[in-house]
Structures are given as structure tokens and as C-alpha cells.
């Protein structure tokens, strides 16, 4: 580009002369503000309602509470106490932890080994097998429900933690293998060649080189899988069931809608309990999450 600098500057300067930049950008900034406001208001309403005194909730809109925020007697945490204790949200929270952590760790471990094999160990049938993995990426979970349910009923896995870990592992694997393969296959070839010259085995290369180098991809995939499992309703409902002793947060919240339909003070508090962990994870690890999304969608 050898274009002279002057013509580039001129049109801007001319406009700016009679309409200063900050006034020109007012409609833009106003619309951005409006969008952010619209996108946040529903969640704000939930949060405010969850800490309001129940008797005010049905008689006035939640926004009226914000008009006089310093009247301390309109705020309360009793809604949370009620849903955690008597509506079983506390128990469901523990269940969600028990279900989620292995359901994230197991598929990512299995997928990492598989992705390494697909990327760096030549074996017969590798190409066609990986093509099947790519094809399975979009197969709806609904295709699996009926046959797996039959297997689980026969094998006494219905309603067990073991059963739901395996189900989440199976359903999470295609994306996990695909994302980790995309990353691991792009690692520089030299490091594998020099490791082979040193006589390192595949297991050593995987443990000492590939895993440490793949932490960004593994982290992003872990966030995906965490959000998916923690927020999942369908798989938990079908394979773990609605029983009070095993139900996870989304199932418990769904039950709350059924049993406490009009009780907004409990529903909003319950909903916020289901959201709190993913929101924290998300806000802390937003960057890694975005990196994962971009690796998963832009490249392919």
C-alpha cells in the first residue's frame, strides 16, 4: 500500500469539523446501553425478587423495591433458607456436585488419550474412525434415550451416579475428542520426533509433553462440559430420575415449578441457587471459555 496519507485523513477531518466525535457517537452509545439494559433486566428481576419479603412480591412489581432500596425490612434471606432446607435445593446442590465433577473429568481424560492417538499414533482404520467421531458431533441425544434406558433398566444403572457419569461421558466425548484433536494435532512435529529419538514411549510423550502443552484446550473443554452437565435437565431426568435423594439442581428447580408454581419468592431463590456456580465459573474463566468457542467454531 503506497497510497498517500493525505486523502485518508481528509474526509474524517471534514466531518469532525462540524460534528464533534462524541456527539456523533451518541446514538451508537445509546443503543449499546439499551441492548445491555434489555439483556440484564430479566436476570436483575430474578435477583431482586429472590431477596424480597414474600408478601410484597405478589402485590407490587420488583422494580418498585428499587425505588426505596434503603427500607431494610423489605429485604430478606428467608426465601433462600426455605428452598435450601424444606424444598431440597441444598441436597440437590450436593447431588449436582457429585454428578458434575466426574462427568467432566472422565470424558476429558478419555478424550485426551483418544485425541493423541488420532493425531500422532498411526493405526489401521484411524481415518474412518475419526470421520465417525466428526459425524457423531451432531447426532441428537434423543437418538440414544430409549435404547440406553433399556440397557440401564436391565443393568440396574437407572438412578445411579455411575449410570449418569457414563451417560454424560458418552454424550460429551465427540466434542471433547474433536476439540482436543484440533489442538493436539497442531502441536509442532519436532517435539514428537526428538522425543522418539530419545526413546520416549507414547505414554511418556503424552504425560510429559502433550498434556502440559494442551492445558488451554483442556481447560476450555472442561468449562464447556461443566456448563453442559451442571445445566442439563434432560439426561438427568431420564437416567437419574426425579427421586428426591438423587435429583440434581435443574430437576429440583423443575419440580419446584410444578409444586410451588405461584410462589415467586421460592422459585426465584431456587433458580438463583442453580445459577450461582456457573455464573462464577463463567465470570472468572470467560477468556478461556471464549477461546474454546473460537477454537471449536471458527476453525472448522
Amino acid at each position, binding site marked *: *500500500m503506497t497510497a498517500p496519507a493525505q486523502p485518508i485523513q481528509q474526509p474524517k477531518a471534514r466531518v469532525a469539523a462540524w460534528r464533534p466525535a462524541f456527539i456523533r457517537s451518541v446514538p*451508537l452509545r445509546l443503543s*449499546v446501553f439499551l441492548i*445491555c439494559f434489555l439483556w440484564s433486566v*430479566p*436476570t436483575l*428481576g430474578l435477583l431482586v425478587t429472590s431477596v424480597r419479603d414474600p408478601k410484597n412480591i*405478589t402485590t*407490587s*412489581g420488583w*422494580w418498585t423495591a428499587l425505588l426505596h432500596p434503603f427500607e431494610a425490612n423489605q429485604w430478606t434471606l428467608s426465601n433462600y433458607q426455605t428452598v435450601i432446607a424444606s424444598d431440597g435445593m441444598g441436597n440437590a446442590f*450436593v447431588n449436582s456436585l457429585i454428578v458434575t465433577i*466426574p462427568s467432566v473429568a*472422565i470424558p476429558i*481424560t*478419555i478424550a485426551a*488419550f*483418544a485425541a*493423541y492417538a488420532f493425531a500422532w*499414533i498411526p*493405526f489401521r482404520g484411524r481415518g474412518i*474412525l475419526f470421520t465417525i*467421531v*466428526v*459425524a*457423531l458431533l451432531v447426532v441428537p441425544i*434423543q*437418538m*440414544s*434415550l*430409549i435404547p440406553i434406558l433399556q440397557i440401564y433398566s436391565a443393568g440396574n444403572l437407572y*438412578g*445411579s*451416579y*455411575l449410570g449418569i457419569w457414563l451417560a454424560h461421558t458418552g*454424550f460429551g*466425548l*465427540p466434542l471433547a475428542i474433536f476439540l482436543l484433536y484440533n489442538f493436539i494435532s497442531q502441536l509442532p512435529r519436532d*517435539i514428537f520426533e526428538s522425543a522418539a529419538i530419545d526413546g520416549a514411549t507414547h505414554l*511418556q510423550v503424552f504425560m510429559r*509433553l502433550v498434556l502440559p502443552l494442551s492445558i488451554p484446550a483442556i481447560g476450555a473443554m472442561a468449562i464447556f462440559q461443566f456448563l453442559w452437565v451442571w*445445566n*442439563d435437565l*434432560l439426561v438427568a431426568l431420564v437416567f437419574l430420575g426425579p427421586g428426591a435423594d438423587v435429583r440434581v*439442581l*435443574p430437576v429440583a*428447580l*423443575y419440580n419446584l*415449578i410444578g409444586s410451588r408454581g405461584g410462589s415467586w419468592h421460592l*422459585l*426465584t431463590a431456587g*433458580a438463583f441457587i*442453580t445459577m450461582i456456580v*456457573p*455464573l462464577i465459573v463463567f465470570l472468572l474463566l*470467560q477468556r478461556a471459555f*471464549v477461546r474454546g468457542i473460537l477454537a471449536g*467454531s*471458527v476453525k*472448522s
Partner: protein
Amino acid sequence: MADIRTEVPGPSRFVLPILGLIALGLCVAGVLVLYDPQGGPNLLASIYDSLGNTSGATALRNGSGDQVIAKLLLAVIALLVGVGGIWLLFLLVGGAVGLLQAKWRDRILPWVFAGPALALLAVFLLYPAAGTIVRSFQNDKGQFTLANFAVMVEPEFTQILRNNAIWLIVGTGASVILGLIFAWLFDRVRREALAKTLVFLPLAISLVGASVIWTFVYAFQPAGQPQIGLLNAVLVGLGGKPISWLTTSPINVFCEIIIMIWLQTGFAMVVFSAAIKGVSGEVLEAARLDGATERQVFVRVIVPMIRGSIVTVSTTIAIVTLKIFDIVFATTGGRFNDDVVANRMFHEIFQFFEDGRGAALATLLFIAVLPVMYINLRNFRRQQVEG
């Protein structure tokens, strides 16, 4: 490149595998505890017994007592077994295969690495998919029939299919278009990161949670009573009559789709935002020099240049909206002419015990994603050839 092998000193050559085997045994015991529905309380009861706390043990066995501690014990075992066990298995089997002769090792090792994943894919996706397709052509006695698909032309089901089509087109279209516009607008303001976070945040919320949030926005009280739902309050404030948004067909379908748009727009925006930043500044400057307005630059230059991202995001969101279940299930249950395929499938299986119809509905979803599968495979092949 440093030598990455470790020199294993004599004794630990035997100690490590033995420790590994012991740990594996403990993991198997842990799995058995987890497999037993009463495993947690029973284990804690045995611990109490050995500590001499017989009354505590009896209470646990009768379903009362320290159930919370039993649950937490189960959680700890779950973590150790779930996270540690799988690593142990890979390391032990991988290590054992490493001791074999080179010829055998090279043949077996890839299957040690990829085998568990392939086996799970076969059990949880391939076999069930085939089973579901077969089941959709069978009646309850296992005989061949087309009846499960034949009912799909009845009004009850055509409405479901129509609703799914609306979800697919409106949900995907609006998320993608709004995502594009937001990415373009946010790109030019100073607090871009904050604005993006606010729009992106709903992606962390479960669909059930989002359904509660929006059911509250749509809350309805008869005219004359105070409106606690934001939308009706605004409507009444402007002089209108309150509407029961979620029970009035056909607007309820669109009200539910808005929940999905609220969730998915952030995803689209983030991908488009990155793509827009990848468009060369020189190209944009050239367009502006030619007298193009910002809007023209966006429509005529930016959008065509990030076409690839638009296709990927559209197909991703299309698949999510096609399978939509939670929102309809949690807001209305599909009882007000707003049912969709995945929700109906759930009710066919668990309420009407019509597995054949459920399988047929799943198969319809599968057929609908086939074009996306084709696009993905074609892109993947192309990538392999280039790379």
C-alpha cells in the same frame, strides 16, 4: 530437547505397579459402593460399627441419622474413583503394554489410547442410534410397521412439526442477526468488554433457570390487579390490556423462542466479534474512502467477508434449537398448542409409553441434522487435504 524418560531405580520398578494395583482394587470397591443405591449409608454404618457407635449405625441403616455425612462420603468416593480411577486404568494398562515386545506394543497401544473412547461412542451413540431407527419401524410386539410415522400427518403432530420449524427459523435467524449487529455495534464503543460480558452471560444459565427468569417477565394477573410481570406492567402502563403470554397461542411459541434468542445471541456475538476483528483494516478503510457509510461497510464488506463464521454459527444454533426441550418442558409443558418434537418425545416415552412414536420423533430430528452432518464432514475432509 531434554530427555523426558525417568530412570526408574530398582525397587520402585516393582513398588509402583503394586501400589497401582492396590489403588485399582480400591477403585473397584468404590465403584461397587456407588453402584449400590444404599452404598453410602451402609458404608458409613460399617464405619460407625467399627468405631463402636452402634446406635448411629442402626439409624443409618433405617434411612435416618447422619444421611448428610453419608452423602458427602459418597461424594468423596465419587471424586476419587471418578477422577483418579480412570487415570490409574490408563497408566497401568499403558505401562503393561509398554513391557511387551515392540511388534506387539505398536499394534496394541493405539487401541489402549483410543479404545475406551471408541467403545463408549459405540455403546452410547452408535448402537442406540441404530436401535432407535429400528424401533421407529416397529410396533410394541416388534413387528414391522409404518404407523409410527403415519401419525405424523395428523393435525396434532403437524402442529408440533410446524412449531419446530418456527423455532428453527426464527430462533436461529434472530440469534444470528442480533449477534451480528451487536458484534458490529460493540466493536466501536469503549467499554466493549463489559457490554459483551452482559450479553454473553445468559449462556452460563441453564435453560430451566432461564425459563424461570422469563416466566417471571411474562407473569400475568387479570386486568385491574397489580402486574408483577415486567412485560405486562409495561403494557398496562402504556394503556394496554394484560396478556397471558405463555398460554395464548400462537404468541406463546414466540415468547418461548425469545428465551432461546436471549441465550444464544451472546454465543453468536462472540464468534462474530472475533471474526470482525480479523477483517483487514485496509479493506474497511478503502471502502470508507470510496464513500461507503458505516452501515454499507457492514452489509457489503464485513458480512460477506465473515461468511464462513456465519455458516458455522448458524448451523450450531440451528442444531440447538431443533432439539429444544427444556424451555417448552419447563414453561408450559407444551400444553397450549406450543409443543415441539423433543418435548413430545419425552411425553410419548414417559407418559404415554409409546416408545415407537418416541423413536419416530427422534428419527425425524436425526434426519433434520443430516445436512449439517454432511457440511461438517465436507469441511473436515477439506481441512485434512489442506493441512
